[in-house]
């Protein structure tokens, strides 16, 4: 299991990357963390003529906040997201999710952009991106275009990134107040591809009613699934187990899993519902704690 020959470039700027993409187009493959690409190079399933290594490109690894959006450079390693205080406080769903990606050695090298551009149907981050309505910034010869997460994933391992473009940044909104969250996945073993996974946020209104709820699923379709029907139903009701079970039913109806050696399609469909209910319960519990804290603070403020 050794890679076939390729020409190797390690440009230091995005402009250089774009020039190389112009030159080689479809023949070139971008190498970020390599934790998904190098295995298929080793297995010779992928034999690109040209490999463009992004690891020396300056200015693509950062985490910052601007206008209630977190901006994450595409070359930011999972481990950096995992350890970022900004992510932990402003978008803890992302922090909880990243911790569940592979193992520490993979997270030390794997990047946010590389993982999302790889678009594995069972990966964790795509579910979060669709749940949060994240944005993908793609740079091409004619400038930057911003693609909403809902339009980014086309098919297994296929995104809307054009052969002459590079993913430079992803953006996610910070978590609104009174918002609980959960990322739950089930895999045969810790760190494996998910049999099914759910990214969930649940925002309570100040009066404890449901303000907003989002559900993104992984492992149950060719692309991550935003469970819009379930979200709509959740928006209408009171946040409680009965409603969550109903939402789970709608999720089961919305996903289109395939059977594989690890589980039948029917099983994955079932799991998507189970995880939805459990994720909603966790998110609600977390949101309720925040609501209570807020109420205590308000009361405290009044008293003080």
């Amino acid at each position: 299991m050794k890679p076939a020959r390729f020409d190797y470039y390690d440009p230091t700027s995005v402009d250089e990357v774009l020039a190389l993409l112009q030159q080689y187009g479809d023949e070139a493959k971008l190498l970020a963390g390599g934790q998904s690409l190098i295995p298929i190079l080793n297995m010779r399933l992928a034999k690109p003529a040209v490999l463009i290594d992004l690891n020396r490109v300056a200015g693509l690894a950062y985490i910052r906040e601007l206008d209630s959006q977190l901006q994450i450079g595409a070359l930011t390693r999972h481990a950096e997201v995992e350890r970022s205080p900004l992510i932990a406080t402003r978008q803890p769903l992302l922090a909880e999710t990243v911790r569940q990606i592979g193992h520490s050695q993979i997270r030390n090298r794997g990047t946010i952009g590389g993982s999302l551009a790889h678009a594995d149907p069972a990966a964790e981050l795509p579910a979060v991106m669709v749940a949060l309505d994240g944005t993908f910034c793609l740079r091409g010869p004619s400038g930057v275009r911003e693609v909403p997460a809902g339009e980014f994933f086309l098919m297994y391992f296929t995104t809307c990134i054009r052969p002459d473009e590079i993913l430079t940044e992803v953006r996610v909104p910070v978590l609104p107040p009174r918002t609980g969250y959960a990322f739950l996945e089930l895999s045969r073993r810790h760190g494996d591809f998910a049999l099914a996974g759910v990214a969930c946020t649940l925002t309570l209104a100040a009066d404890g009613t449901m303000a907003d709820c989002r559900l993104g699923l992984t492992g149950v379709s060719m692309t991550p699934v935003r469970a819009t029907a379930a979200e709509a139903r959740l928006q209408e009701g009171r946040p409680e187990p009965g409603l969550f079970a109903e939402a789970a039913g709608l999720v089961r109806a919305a996903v289109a899993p395939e059977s594989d050696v690890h589980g039948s399609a029917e099983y994955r469909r079932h799991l998507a519902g189970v995880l939805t209910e459990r994720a909603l319960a966790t998110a609600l519990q977390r949101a309720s704690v925040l609501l209570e804290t807020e109420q205590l603070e308000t009361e405290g403020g009044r008293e003080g």
Partner: protein
Amino acid sequence: MQVTGDFQFEGPRLSVWALLNDPIVLARCTPGCEELTPDGPDRYQATVKIGLAAVKGTYTGVFRIADKQEPASTTQPATMTLQIEMSGSSGFVNVAGRMELADNGPVTRLHYDWDVQVGGPIAMVGQRVLAGVARWIIGDFFGAAGKELAARQQAG
């Protein structure tokens, strides 16, 4: 693996039958088909370039149409089998695709029952997505054929 499904063509059975027996149409509708040269009756040499993201491969082999049953009466379904045997460095794909065409007024209902056999490295590593990809390719094929038919109907 078995991939079964139905597809509805907006046209009579006779036209759909002619369409699916036309090598030019087969070539145009098969995703990634780069070459389809006749090689005997209902038999073609094919080159198909197909891939998913970085996993790309060129496969060469034979397309064959067999077991053709086209009853004159339109009350009985017409049947044919598309046999595909392709191989490349990432493995091989063998397909026996049975298709049944039934007249249904102005439209033709096609029922397909394809036995798709994938072997070699792609099967060994790609088991998670093989069924989905097969379904997608087959769907693509019939979708393209449907468009061909529409174009023909318009032209005709």
